[in-house]
Protein backbone atom coordinates (compact mmCIF):
# COMPACT_ATOMS: atom_id res chain seq x y z
CA UNK A 1 0.00 0.00 0.00
CA UNK A 2 1.50 3.33 -1.12
CA UNK A 3 0.37 5.71 1.62
CA UNK A 4 2.20 8.65 0.08
CA UNK A 5 0.28 8.20 -3.18
CA UNK A 6 -3.01 7.91 -1.28
CA UNK A 7 -2.27 11.09 0.67
CA UNK A 8 -1.35 12.93 -2.54
CA UNK A 9 -4.61 11.81 -4.17
CA UNK A 10 -6.67 12.93 -1.18
CA UNK A 11 -4.84 16.28 -1.16
CA UNK A 12 -5.41 16.70 -4.91
CA UNK A 13 -9.10 15.82 -4.56
CA UNK A 14 -9.60 18.21 -1.65
CA UNK A 15 -7.87 21.15 -3.37
CA UNK A 16 -9.76 20.50 -6.62
CA UNK A 17 -13.07 20.53 -4.76
CA UNK A 18 -12.16 23.69 -2.84
CA UNK A 19 -11.18 25.49 -6.05
CA UNK A 20 -13.93 24.12 -8.26
CA UNK A 21 -17.11 24.18 -6.16
CA UNK A 22 -17.38 27.97 -5.62
CA UNK A 23 -16.81 28.50 -9.34
CA UNK A 24 -19.37 25.80 -10.14
CA UNK A 25 -21.94 27.45 -7.84
CA UNK A 26 -21.62 30.76 -9.66
CA UNK A 27 -21.54 29.16 -13.11
CA UNK A 28 -24.39 26.75 -12.36
CA UNK A 29 -26.52 29.59 -11.03
CA UNK A 30 -25.82 31.80 -14.03
CA UNK A 31 -26.67 28.99 -16.41
CA UNK A 32 -29.80 28.01 -14.48
CA UNK A 33 -31.29 31.51 -14.38
CA UNK A 34 -29.72 33.27 -17.33
CA UNK A 35 -31.16 33.43 -20.82
CA UNK A 36 -28.48 34.64 -23.17
CA UNK A 37 -27.32 34.06 -26.69
CA UNK A 38 -24.87 31.20 -26.96
CA UNK A 39 -26.01 29.57 -23.72
CA UNK A 40 -26.26 26.13 -25.32
CA UNK A 41 -22.71 26.52 -26.66
CA UNK A 42 -21.42 27.35 -23.18
CA UNK A 43 -23.27 24.33 -21.79
CA UNK A 44 -21.81 22.12 -24.51
CA UNK A 45 -18.30 23.41 -23.79
CA UNK A 46 -18.71 22.60 -20.12
CA UNK A 47 -19.74 19.07 -21.01
CA UNK A 48 -16.78 18.42 -23.32
CA UNK A 49 -14.57 16.76 -20.65
CA UNK A 50 -17.34 14.16 -20.17
CA UNK A 51 -17.06 12.87 -23.73
CA UNK A 52 -13.42 13.54 -24.55
CA UNK A 53 -10.92 10.77 -23.59
CA UNK A 54 -8.86 11.95 -20.55
CA UNK A 55 -5.66 11.30 -22.46
CA UNK A 56 -6.76 13.74 -25.13
CA UNK A 57 -7.46 16.42 -22.54
CA UNK A 58 -4.14 15.57 -20.92
CA UNK A 59 -2.37 15.92 -24.25
CA UNK A 60 -3.85 19.35 -24.93
CA UNK A 61 -3.00 20.51 -21.41
CA UNK A 62 0.54 19.20 -21.77
CA UNK A 63 1.00 20.98 -25.06
CA UNK A 64 -0.91 24.11 -24.02
CA UNK A 65 0.77 24.57 -20.65
CA UNK A 66 4.17 23.02 -21.41
CA UNK A 67 7.41 25.00 -21.37
CA UNK A 68 7.30 25.30 -25.16
CA UNK A 69 3.95 27.11 -25.18
CA UNK A 70 3.58 30.85 -24.67
CA UNK A 71 1.11 30.24 -21.83
CA UNK A 72 3.52 27.82 -20.11
CA UNK A 73 6.35 30.34 -20.47
CA UNK A 74 4.16 33.12 -19.12
CA UNK A 75 3.20 31.03 -16.08
CA UNK A 76 6.82 30.08 -15.46
CA UNK A 77 7.95 33.70 -15.68
CA UNK A 78 5.18 34.82 -13.32
CA UNK A 79 5.41 32.07 -10.69
CA UNK A 80 8.88 30.69 -11.31
CA UNK A 81 7.46 27.23 -11.73
CA UNK A 82 6.01 25.32 -14.64
CA UNK A 83 2.72 23.49 -14.31
CA UNK A 84 3.60 20.29 -16.13
CA UNK A 85 5.10 17.49 -14.04
CA UNK A 86 4.21 19.45 -10.93
CA UNK A 87 1.41 19.09 -8.35
CA UNK A 88 -0.04 22.50 -9.25
CA UNK A 89 -0.39 21.28 -12.84
CA UNK A 90 -2.39 18.31 -11.58
CA UNK A 91 -4.72 20.71 -9.75
CA UNK A 92 -5.30 22.74 -12.92
CA UNK A 93 -5.90 19.58 -14.95
CA UNK A 94 -8.24 18.10 -12.32
CA UNK A 95 -10.24 21.32 -12.11
CA UNK A 96 -10.71 21.42 -15.89
CA UNK A 97 -11.61 17.74 -16.23
CA UNK A 98 -14.12 17.90 -13.38
CA UNK A 99 -16.01 21.01 -14.47
CA UNK A 100 -19.03 19.03 -15.77
CA UNK A 101 -19.16 16.88 -12.62
CA UNK A 102 -19.36 20.03 -10.52
CA UNK A 103 -21.49 22.34 -12.68
CA UNK A 104 -24.15 19.89 -13.83
CA UNK A 105 -25.64 18.83 -10.46
CA UNK A 106 -25.42 22.36 -9.11
CA UNK A 107 -27.10 23.86 -12.19
CA UNK A 108 -29.90 21.29 -11.99
CA UNK A 109 -30.37 22.09 -8.30
CA UNK A 110 -30.65 25.83 -9.01
CA UNK A 111 -33.17 25.10 -11.75
CA UNK A 112 -35.49 23.52 -9.19
CA UNK A 113 -35.78 26.75 -7.19
CA UNK A 114 -39.18 28.21 -8.08
CA UNK A 115 -39.21 31.64 -9.70
CA UNK A 116 -41.62 32.75 -6.97
CA UNK A 117 -38.96 32.18 -4.31
CA UNK A 118 -36.33 34.18 -6.18
CA UNK A 119 -38.82 36.98 -6.85
CA UNK A 120 -39.84 37.01 -3.19
CA UNK A 121 -36.20 37.23 -2.10
CA UNK A 122 -35.63 40.27 -4.34
CA UNK A 123 -38.84 41.89 -3.11
CA UNK A 124 -37.79 41.26 0.50
CA UNK A 125 -34.83 43.53 -0.19
CA UNK A 126 -32.16 40.83 -0.59
CA UNK A 127 -29.46 41.49 -3.12
CA UNK A 128 -28.24 38.57 -5.24
CA UNK A 129 -25.44 37.64 -2.81
CA UNK A 130 -27.70 37.69 0.24
CA UNK A 131 -30.29 35.68 -1.65
CA UNK A 132 -27.64 33.16 -2.71
CA UNK A 133 -26.24 32.79 0.78
CA UNK A 134 -29.44 32.84 2.85
CA UNK A 135 -32.05 31.32 0.56
CA UNK A 136 -30.64 29.55 -2.47
CA UNK A 137 -27.60 27.71 -1.09
CA UNK A 138 -29.62 26.03 1.67
CA UNK A 139 -32.03 24.90 -1.06
CA UNK A 140 -29.36 23.59 -3.45
CA UNK A 141 -27.25 21.80 -0.82
CA UNK A 142 -28.08 18.34 -2.16
CA UNK A 143 -26.78 19.38 -5.57
CA UNK A 144 -23.65 20.94 -4.09
CA UNK A 145 -23.01 17.85 -1.99
CA UNK A 146 -23.44 15.60 -5.01
CA UNK A 147 -20.96 17.77 -6.92
CA UNK A 148 -18.45 17.58 -4.04
CA UNK A 149 -18.65 13.80 -3.82
CA UNK A 150 -18.55 13.29 -7.59
CA UNK A 151 -15.53 15.55 -8.01
CA UNK A 152 -13.68 14.14 -5.01
CA UNK A 153 -14.23 10.54 -6.11
CA UNK A 154 -13.47 11.30 -9.72
CA UNK A 155 -10.18 13.06 -8.91
CA UNK A 156 -9.23 10.23 -6.56
CA UNK A 157 -9.53 7.76 -9.41
CA UNK A 158 -8.25 10.00 -12.21
CA UNK A 159 -5.57 8.35 -14.32
CA UNK A 160 -5.22 9.51 -17.92
CA UNK A 161 -4.98 13.26 -17.38
CA UNK A 162 -2.76 12.85 -14.32
CA UNK A 163 -0.32 10.61 -16.18
CA UNK A 164 -0.16 12.90 -19.20
CA UNK A 165 0.16 16.12 -17.22
CA UNK A 166 2.15 14.97 -14.20
CA UNK A 167 3.96 11.83 -15.21
CA UNK A 168 4.92 9.57 -12.31
CA UNK A 169 7.03 11.48 -9.79
CA UNK A 170 6.79 10.01 -6.28
CA UNK A 171 5.60 12.53 -3.71
CA UNK A 172 4.82 15.11 -6.43
CA UNK A 173 2.51 13.64 -9.09
CA UNK A 174 2.24 9.95 -8.29
CA UNK A 175 -1.38 9.54 -7.25
CA UNK A 176 -3.02 6.33 -6.07
CA UNK A 177 -4.28 5.44 -9.55
CA UNK A 178 -0.74 5.73 -10.91
CA UNK A 179 0.52 3.70 -7.93
CA UNK A 180 -1.98 0.92 -8.76
CA UNK A 181 -0.80 0.94 -12.37
CA UNK A 182 2.84 0.83 -11.18
CA UNK A 183 2.13 -2.10 -8.86
CA UNK A 184 0.46 -4.07 -11.64
CA UNK A 185 3.40 -3.34 -13.95
CA UNK A 186 5.69 -4.69 -11.20
CA UNK A 187 3.42 -7.75 -10.71
CA UNK A 188 2.71 -6.63 -7.12
CA UNK A 189 -0.93 -7.67 -7.23
CA UNK A 190 -1.29 -7.59 -3.44
CA UNK A 191 -0.52 -3.88 -3.25
CA UNK A 192 -2.63 -3.17 -6.34
CA UNK A 193 -5.52 -5.15 -4.88
CA UNK A 194 -5.37 -3.35 -1.53
CA UNK A 195 -5.28 0.10 -3.12
CA UNK A 196 -8.07 -0.81 -5.55
CA UNK A 197 -10.18 -2.06 -2.65
CA UNK A 198 -9.61 1.20 -0.77
CA UNK A 199 -10.81 3.19 -3.80
CA UNK A 200 -13.79 0.86 -4.32
CA UNK A 201 -14.88 1.10 -0.67
CA UNK A 202 -14.46 4.85 -0.71
CA UNK A 203 -16.56 5.19 -3.87
CA UNK A 204 -19.41 3.03 -2.53
CA UNK A 205 -19.41 4.71 0.90
CA UNK A 206 -19.31 8.21 -0.57
CA UNK A 207 -22.13 7.55 -2.99
CA UNK A 208 -24.29 5.81 -0.36
CA UNK A 209 -23.78 8.66 2.12
CA UNK A 210 -24.55 11.26 -0.55
CA UNK A 211 -27.73 9.53 -1.61
CA UNK A 212 -28.92 9.19 1.96
CA UNK A 213 -27.99 12.74 2.95
CA UNK A 214 -29.52 14.19 -0.21
CA UNK A 215 -32.76 12.33 0.44
CA UNK A 216 -32.86 13.57 4.02
CA UNK A 217 -32.20 17.15 2.97
CA UNK A 218 -34.79 16.90 0.21
CA UNK A 219 -37.39 15.75 2.74
CA UNK A 220 -36.47 18.46 5.22
CA UNK A 221 -36.76 21.24 2.65
CA UNK A 222 -39.74 19.78 0.84
CA UNK A 223 -41.45 22.55 -1.07
Amino acid at each position, binding site marked *: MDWEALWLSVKLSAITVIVLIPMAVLTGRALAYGQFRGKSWVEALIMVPLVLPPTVIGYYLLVGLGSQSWLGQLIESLFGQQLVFHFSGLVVASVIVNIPFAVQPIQRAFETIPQDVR*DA*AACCGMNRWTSLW*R*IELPMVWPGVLTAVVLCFSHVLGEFGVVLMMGGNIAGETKTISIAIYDSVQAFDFNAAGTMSLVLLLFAITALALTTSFTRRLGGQHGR
Partner: protein
Amino acid sequence: MAVDLHCRVNQTLPIPLNADFTCHAGEVLAVVGPSGGGKTTLLRMIAGLGKPTQGEIRSGDTVWFDNNGTCLSPQARHIGYVPQHFGLFPNLTALQNVVSALDHIPLDERVPRALDWLERVNLQGMPDRLPSQLSGGQKQRVALARALAREPSILLLDEPFSAVDRETRERLYLELARLKSQLAVPVIMVTHDLNEALLLADRMILISQGKMLQQGKPHEVLARPRNEAVARQMGLRNLFNAHVVAQDEEQGITWLKMGEILIASDYGGSLDIGSKVRWVIPNQGIRFNAIASGRLCRSFNKLDVIIDSMLVMGETVRLICNVVGIEGQLNTEVPLHLATKLALAEGVRTTVALKSDQIHILEPC
Protein backbone atom coordinates in the same frame (compact mmCIF):
# COMPACT_ATOMS: atom_id res chain seq x y z
CA MET B 1 -46.67 58.81 3.69
CA ALA B 2 -48.69 56.65 1.31
CA VAL B 3 -48.71 57.77 -2.31
CA ASP B 4 -50.43 56.76 -5.52
CA LEU B 5 -48.89 54.48 -8.11
CA HIS B 6 -48.95 55.58 -11.73
CA CYS B 7 -48.23 53.00 -14.38
CA ARG B 8 -47.98 53.33 -18.12
CA VAL B 9 -46.31 50.55 -20.05
CA ASN B 10 -46.10 50.02 -23.74
CA GLN B 11 -44.39 47.19 -25.53
CA THR B 12 -44.91 44.77 -28.38
CA LEU B 13 -42.12 42.28 -27.63
CA PRO B 14 -41.51 39.76 -26.10
CA ILE B 15 -45.25 39.89 -25.40
CA PRO B 16 -47.53 42.78 -26.34
CA LEU B 17 -48.61 44.82 -23.34
CA ASN B 18 -50.27 48.20 -23.18
CA ALA B 19 -51.65 49.62 -19.97
CA ASP B 20 -52.12 53.02 -18.43
CA PHE B 21 -53.65 53.41 -14.99
CA THR B 22 -53.31 54.89 -11.53
CA CYS B 23 -53.82 53.03 -8.27
CA HIS B 24 -54.55 55.37 -5.42
CA ALA B 25 -53.28 54.93 -1.88
CA GLY B 26 -55.71 52.81 0.15
CA GLU B 27 -57.36 51.50 -2.99
CA VAL B 28 -57.52 47.86 -4.12
CA LEU B 29 -57.15 47.64 -7.87
CA ALA B 30 -57.91 44.29 -9.46
CA VAL B 31 -56.17 43.41 -12.70
CA VAL B 32 -58.54 40.94 -14.29
CA GLY B 33 -58.24 38.91 -17.45
CA PRO B 34 -57.76 35.48 -18.91
CA SER B 35 -54.58 33.45 -18.41
CA GLY B 36 -51.76 34.55 -20.65
CA GLY B 37 -53.25 38.02 -21.07
CA GLY B 38 -50.28 39.83 -19.53
CA LYS B 39 -51.53 40.37 -15.96
CA THR B 40 -48.60 38.77 -14.17
CA THR B 41 -46.13 40.37 -16.60
CA LEU B 42 -47.60 43.75 -15.71
CA LEU B 43 -47.32 43.03 -11.98
CA ARG B 44 -43.70 41.91 -12.37
CA MET B 45 -42.92 45.13 -14.21
CA ILE B 46 -44.36 47.16 -11.36
CA ALA B 47 -42.29 45.10 -8.91
CA GLY B 48 -39.13 45.69 -10.94
CA LEU B 49 -38.80 41.99 -11.74
CA GLY B 50 -39.40 42.68 -15.42
CA LYS B 51 -38.65 45.67 -17.61
CA PRO B 52 -41.10 47.17 -20.09
CA THR B 53 -39.79 48.38 -23.44
CA GLN B 54 -41.33 51.80 -22.91
CA GLY B 55 -43.41 53.61 -20.37
CA GLU B 56 -43.28 55.19 -16.95
CA ILE B 57 -43.88 53.68 -13.53
CA ARG B 58 -44.02 56.16 -10.69
CA SER B 59 -44.76 55.97 -6.98
CA GLY B 60 -45.87 59.47 -6.14
CA ASP B 61 -42.99 61.65 -7.36
CA THR B 62 -40.43 58.86 -7.28
CA VAL B 63 -39.77 57.49 -10.75
CA TRP B 64 -39.24 53.72 -10.71
CA PHE B 65 -38.97 53.32 -14.45
CA ASP B 66 -38.94 55.68 -17.39
CA ASN B 67 -37.68 55.95 -20.94
CA ASN B 68 -34.61 57.94 -19.84
CA GLY B 69 -32.88 54.93 -18.40
CA THR B 70 -34.24 55.02 -14.84
CA CYS B 71 -35.04 51.51 -13.64
CA LEU B 72 -35.01 50.92 -9.91
CA SER B 73 -34.37 47.40 -8.66
CA PRO B 74 -37.09 45.55 -6.72
CA GLN B 75 -35.00 46.11 -3.58
CA ALA B 76 -35.01 49.87 -4.11
CA ARG B 77 -38.77 50.03 -4.82
CA HIS B 78 -39.56 48.74 -1.33
CA ILE B 79 -42.65 46.79 -2.27
CA GLY B 80 -44.69 44.02 -0.70
CA TYR B 81 -45.14 41.14 -3.10
CA VAL B 82 -47.16 37.96 -2.67
CA PRO B 83 -46.42 35.63 -5.59
CA GLN B 84 -48.96 33.15 -6.91
CA HIS B 85 -47.41 30.21 -5.06
CA PHE B 86 -46.43 32.41 -2.09
CA GLY B 87 -42.66 32.18 -2.64
CA LEU B 88 -41.96 31.22 0.96
CA PHE B 89 -38.35 30.34 1.71
CA PRO B 90 -38.56 26.60 2.45
CA ASN B 91 -35.50 26.50 4.68
CA LEU B 92 -36.78 29.26 6.97
CA THR B 93 -39.54 29.06 9.56
CA ALA B 94 -42.65 31.21 9.32
CA LEU B 95 -41.07 33.71 11.72
CA GLN B 96 -37.75 33.76 9.84
CA ASN B 97 -39.63 34.26 6.58
CA VAL B 98 -41.24 37.40 7.94
CA VAL B 99 -38.00 38.58 9.60
CA SER B 100 -36.21 38.22 6.25
CA ALA B 101 -38.26 41.10 4.86
CA LEU B 102 -37.42 43.46 7.73
CA ASP B 103 -34.01 44.70 6.64
CA HIS B 104 -35.28 48.28 6.94
CA ILE B 105 -35.58 48.26 10.75
CA PRO B 106 -32.98 47.73 13.52
CA LEU B 107 -31.96 44.12 14.22
CA ASP B 108 -33.43 43.94 17.74
CA GLU B 109 -36.87 45.11 16.56
CA ARG B 110 -37.24 42.53 13.81
CA VAL B 111 -38.43 39.47 15.75
CA PRO B 112 -41.08 41.34 17.83
CA ARG B 113 -42.31 43.05 14.67
CA ALA B 114 -42.50 39.76 12.77
CA LEU B 115 -44.37 38.09 15.65
CA ASP B 116 -46.80 40.99 15.70
CA TRP B 117 -47.52 40.57 11.98
CA LEU B 118 -47.98 36.82 12.31
CA GLU B 119 -50.51 37.55 15.02
CA ARG B 120 -52.30 40.08 12.82
CA VAL B 121 -52.83 37.42 10.18
CA ASN B 122 -54.02 34.93 12.82
CA LEU B 123 -50.90 32.77 12.81
CA GLN B 124 -49.99 33.06 16.46
CA GLY B 125 -48.58 29.83 17.86
CA MET B 126 -46.85 28.65 14.72
CA PRO B 127 -43.83 30.90 14.19
CA ASP B 128 -41.43 27.95 14.33
CA ARG B 129 -43.08 25.93 11.60
CA LEU B 130 -41.39 25.44 8.27
CA PRO B 131 -43.49 26.17 5.17
CA SER B 132 -43.73 22.43 4.49
CA GLN B 133 -45.54 22.08 7.83
CA LEU B 134 -48.17 24.71 6.97
CA SER B 135 -51.44 24.37 5.06
CA GLY B 136 -52.08 26.34 1.87
CA GLY B 137 -54.05 29.01 3.70
CA GLN B 138 -51.40 29.35 6.40
CA LYS B 139 -48.67 29.69 3.80
CA GLN B 140 -50.68 32.40 2.11
CA ARG B 141 -50.97 34.28 5.39
CA VAL B 142 -47.24 34.02 6.10
CA ALA B 143 -46.59 35.42 2.63
CA LEU B 144 -49.05 38.23 3.29
CA ALA B 145 -47.52 38.96 6.71
CA ARG B 146 -44.06 39.02 5.13
CA ALA B 147 -45.19 41.45 2.45
CA LEU B 148 -47.00 43.75 4.88
CA ALA B 149 -44.32 43.67 7.58
CA ARG B 150 -42.04 45.38 5.11
CA GLU B 151 -44.25 48.50 5.37
CA PRO B 152 -44.27 48.61 1.59
CA SER B 153 -44.98 51.57 -0.63
CA ILE B 154 -47.30 49.28 -2.60
CA LEU B 155 -48.72 45.79 -2.09
CA LEU B 156 -48.77 43.46 -5.09
CA LEU B 157 -50.80 40.26 -4.98
CA ASP B 158 -50.49 37.77 -7.81
CA GLU B 159 -53.51 35.43 -7.93
CA PRO B 160 -53.44 35.39 -4.12
CA PHE B 161 -56.25 32.90 -3.68
CA SER B 162 -55.71 30.53 -6.58
CA ALA B 163 -53.61 27.96 -4.72
CA VAL B 164 -55.93 27.40 -1.77
CA ASP B 165 -59.12 25.40 -1.38
CA ARG B 166 -62.54 27.02 -1.55
CA GLU B 167 -63.20 27.12 2.19
CA THR B 168 -59.80 28.67 2.90
CA ARG B 169 -60.35 31.14 0.08
CA GLU B 170 -63.63 32.32 1.61
CA ARG B 171 -61.86 32.87 4.96
CA LEU B 172 -58.98 34.70 3.30
CA TYR B 173 -61.42 36.99 1.47
CA LEU B 174 -62.73 38.12 4.84
CA GLU B 175 -59.22 38.63 6.20
CA LEU B 176 -58.10 40.66 3.22
CA ALA B 177 -61.27 42.71 3.40
CA ARG B 178 -60.46 43.36 7.08
CA LEU B 179 -56.81 44.22 6.37
CA LYS B 180 -57.84 46.44 3.48
CA SER B 181 -59.37 48.97 5.82
CA GLN B 182 -56.06 49.20 7.74
CA LEU B 183 -53.84 49.62 4.68
CA ALA B 184 -53.05 53.05 3.37
CA VAL B 185 -51.01 51.95 0.36
CA PRO B 186 -52.05 51.09 -3.19
CA VAL B 187 -52.91 47.41 -3.48
CA ILE B 188 -52.80 45.77 -6.91
CA MET B 189 -54.29 42.31 -7.11
CA VAL B 190 -54.01 40.14 -10.19
CA THR B 191 -56.82 37.64 -10.62
CA HIS B 192 -58.62 35.75 -13.34
CA ASP B 193 -61.62 35.35 -11.06
CA LEU B 194 -64.15 38.07 -11.68
CA ASN B 195 -65.95 37.35 -8.42
CA GLU B 196 -62.79 38.18 -6.46
CA ALA B 197 -62.63 41.53 -8.19
CA LEU B 198 -66.31 42.20 -7.48
CA LEU B 199 -65.85 41.17 -3.86
CA LEU B 200 -62.60 42.86 -2.91
CA ALA B 201 -61.61 45.55 -5.40
CA ASP B 202 -62.48 49.23 -5.39
CA ARG B 203 -61.58 49.46 -9.05
CA MET B 204 -60.59 47.04 -11.75
CA ILE B 205 -58.82 47.00 -15.05
CA LEU B 206 -59.58 44.37 -17.61
CA ILE B 207 -56.64 43.07 -19.63
CA SER B 208 -56.77 40.65 -22.53
CA GLN B 209 -54.01 39.77 -24.98
CA GLY B 210 -51.88 42.54 -23.56
CA LYS B 211 -54.50 45.24 -24.12
CA MET B 212 -56.27 47.16 -21.42
CA LEU B 213 -59.91 46.83 -22.43
CA GLN B 214 -61.63 48.86 -19.72
CA GLN B 215 -61.14 50.24 -16.25
CA GLY B 216 -63.62 51.35 -13.61
CA LYS B 217 -65.53 50.18 -10.58
CA PRO B 218 -66.13 46.43 -10.89
CA HIS B 219 -69.92 46.68 -10.77
CA GLU B 220 -69.87 49.47 -13.35
CA VAL B 221 -67.67 47.48 -15.71
CA LEU B 222 -70.00 44.52 -15.26
CA ALA B 223 -73.11 46.59 -15.88
CA ARG B 224 -71.63 48.81 -18.61
CA PRO B 225 -69.04 46.88 -20.58
CA ARG B 226 -67.55 49.07 -23.24
CA ASN B 227 -67.66 46.53 -26.06
CA GLU B 228 -68.28 42.90 -26.85
CA ALA B 229 -64.74 41.83 -25.93
CA VAL B 230 -65.20 43.30 -22.45
CA ALA B 231 -68.67 41.79 -22.13
CA ARG B 232 -67.32 38.35 -22.98
CA GLN B 233 -64.41 38.73 -20.57
CA MET B 234 -66.87 39.69 -17.87
CA GLY B 235 -68.70 36.43 -18.48
CA LEU B 236 -71.76 38.09 -20.01
CA ARG B 237 -73.32 35.63 -22.42
CA ASN B 238 -76.52 37.38 -23.40
CA LEU B 239 -75.43 39.35 -26.43
CA PHE B 240 -77.94 40.20 -29.17
CA ASN B 241 -78.09 42.07 -32.47
CA ALA B 242 -80.72 44.75 -32.95
CA HIS B 243 -81.63 47.87 -34.94
CA VAL B 244 -82.18 51.26 -33.37
CA VAL B 245 -85.72 52.28 -34.20
CA ALA B 246 -86.21 55.36 -32.03
CA GLN B 247 -84.71 57.44 -29.25
CA ASP B 248 -86.82 59.32 -26.74
CA GLU B 249 -84.43 61.86 -25.26
CA GLU B 250 -87.02 63.22 -22.86
CA GLN B 251 -87.60 59.86 -21.18
CA GLY B 252 -84.07 58.66 -21.87
CA ILE B 253 -85.21 55.58 -23.72
CA THR B 254 -83.71 53.95 -26.77
CA TRP B 255 -86.00 51.61 -28.70
CA LEU B 256 -84.44 48.58 -30.32
CA LYS B 257 -85.94 45.99 -32.60
CA MET B 258 -84.88 42.35 -32.93
CA GLY B 259 -87.01 40.65 -35.57
CA GLU B 260 -90.49 41.73 -34.56
CA ILE B 261 -89.59 42.14 -30.89
CA LEU B 262 -89.38 45.66 -29.55
CA ILE B 263 -86.93 46.28 -26.73
CA ALA B 264 -86.63 49.40 -24.60
CA SER B 265 -83.30 50.36 -23.09
CA ASP B 266 -82.40 53.15 -20.71
CA TYR B 267 -79.25 53.73 -22.78
CA GLY B 268 -78.74 57.48 -22.99
CA GLY B 269 -76.07 57.76 -25.68
CA SER B 270 -76.82 59.16 -29.09
CA LEU B 271 -77.34 56.59 -31.84
CA ASP B 272 -78.30 56.80 -35.50
CA ILE B 273 -81.81 55.61 -36.20
CA GLY B 274 -81.66 52.42 -38.25
CA SER B 275 -78.10 51.60 -37.17
CA LYS B 276 -77.19 48.08 -36.20
CA VAL B 277 -76.10 47.57 -32.59
CA ARG B 278 -75.10 44.79 -30.19
CA TRP B 279 -76.63 44.87 -26.76
CA VAL B 280 -76.06 42.92 -23.61
CA ILE B 281 -77.93 42.17 -20.44
CA PRO B 282 -76.45 40.69 -17.23
CA ASN B 283 -78.14 37.91 -15.35
CA GLN B 284 -79.60 40.24 -12.75
CA GLY B 285 -81.51 42.09 -15.48
CA ILE B 286 -83.55 39.01 -16.39
CA ARG B 287 -86.70 38.30 -14.36
CA PHE B 288 -88.06 34.80 -14.63
CA ASN B 289 -91.44 35.10 -12.94
CA ALA B 290 -94.61 33.56 -14.40
CA ILE B 291 -97.08 35.91 -16.03
CA ALA B 292 -99.86 33.66 -14.83
CA SER B 293 -99.02 34.55 -11.25
CA GLY B 294 -99.37 38.20 -12.15
CA ARG B 295 -95.97 39.00 -10.72
CA LEU B 296 -94.08 39.86 -13.83
CA CYS B 297 -92.18 42.99 -13.07
CA ARG B 298 -93.36 46.19 -14.61
CA SER B 299 -91.01 46.33 -17.48
CA PHE B 300 -91.24 47.36 -21.08
CA ASN B 301 -89.59 44.22 -22.24
CA LYS B 302 -91.13 40.81 -22.43
CA LEU B 303 -89.51 37.92 -24.26
CA ASP B 304 -91.14 34.61 -25.07
CA VAL B 305 -88.66 31.81 -24.61
CA ILE B 306 -88.62 28.02 -24.77
CA ILE B 307 -86.35 26.34 -22.25
CA ASP B 308 -83.77 24.39 -24.22
CA SER B 309 -81.69 22.97 -21.38
CA MET B 310 -81.47 23.07 -17.60
CA LEU B 311 -78.46 22.30 -15.47
CA VAL B 312 -78.81 22.11 -11.70
CA MET B 313 -75.69 23.52 -10.03
CA GLY B 314 -76.13 23.21 -6.28
CA GLU B 315 -78.65 25.80 -5.19
CA THR B 316 -79.01 27.37 -8.63
CA VAL B 317 -80.25 26.23 -12.01
CA ARG B 318 -78.54 27.31 -15.21
CA LEU B 319 -81.00 27.75 -18.06
CA ILE B 320 -80.43 28.07 -21.76
CA CYS B 321 -83.55 29.26 -23.57
CA ASN B 322 -84.33 29.79 -27.25
CA VAL B 323 -85.91 33.19 -27.83
CA VAL B 324 -89.13 32.88 -29.82
CA GLY B 325 -89.12 35.00 -32.98
CA ILE B 326 -85.38 35.41 -33.42
CA GLU B 327 -82.36 33.22 -33.67
CA GLY B 328 -80.76 33.71 -30.30
CA GLN B 329 -80.39 32.13 -26.91
CA LEU B 330 -80.80 33.56 -23.48
CA ASN B 331 -78.50 32.26 -20.75
CA THR B 332 -79.52 32.79 -17.20
CA GLU B 333 -79.47 31.40 -13.70
CA VAL B 334 -82.35 31.16 -11.23
CA PRO B 335 -82.45 29.83 -7.68
CA LEU B 336 -83.42 26.16 -7.54
CA HIS B 337 -86.45 26.87 -5.34
CA LEU B 338 -87.76 29.40 -7.87
CA ALA B 339 -87.29 26.99 -10.77
CA THR B 340 -89.25 24.37 -8.83
CA LYS B 341 -91.97 26.85 -7.88
CA LEU B 342 -92.36 28.04 -11.47
CA ALA B 343 -92.26 24.43 -12.76
CA LEU B 344 -89.52 25.27 -15.18
CA ALA B 345 -88.50 22.32 -17.28
CA GLU B 346 -86.93 21.60 -20.63
CA GLY B 347 -89.39 22.34 -23.46
CA VAL B 348 -91.56 24.65 -21.35
CA ARG B 349 -92.53 27.92 -23.02
CA THR B 350 -92.59 30.92 -20.74
CA THR B 351 -92.12 34.67 -20.69
CA VAL B 352 -89.26 36.55 -19.16
CA ALA B 353 -88.92 40.23 -18.45
CA LEU B 354 -85.82 42.23 -19.25
CA LYS B 355 -85.17 45.25 -17.05
CA SER B 356 -84.67 48.19 -19.35
CA ASP B 357 -82.10 49.84 -17.07
CA GLN B 358 -79.90 46.75 -17.34
CA ILE B 359 -79.87 46.68 -21.13
CA HIS B 360 -76.58 48.10 -22.28
CA ILE B 361 -75.66 48.92 -25.87
CA LEU B 362 -72.06 48.08 -26.75
CA GLU B 363 -69.59 50.14 -28.70
CA PRO B 364 -68.33 48.43 -31.83
CA CYS B 365 -65.01 46.55 -31.15
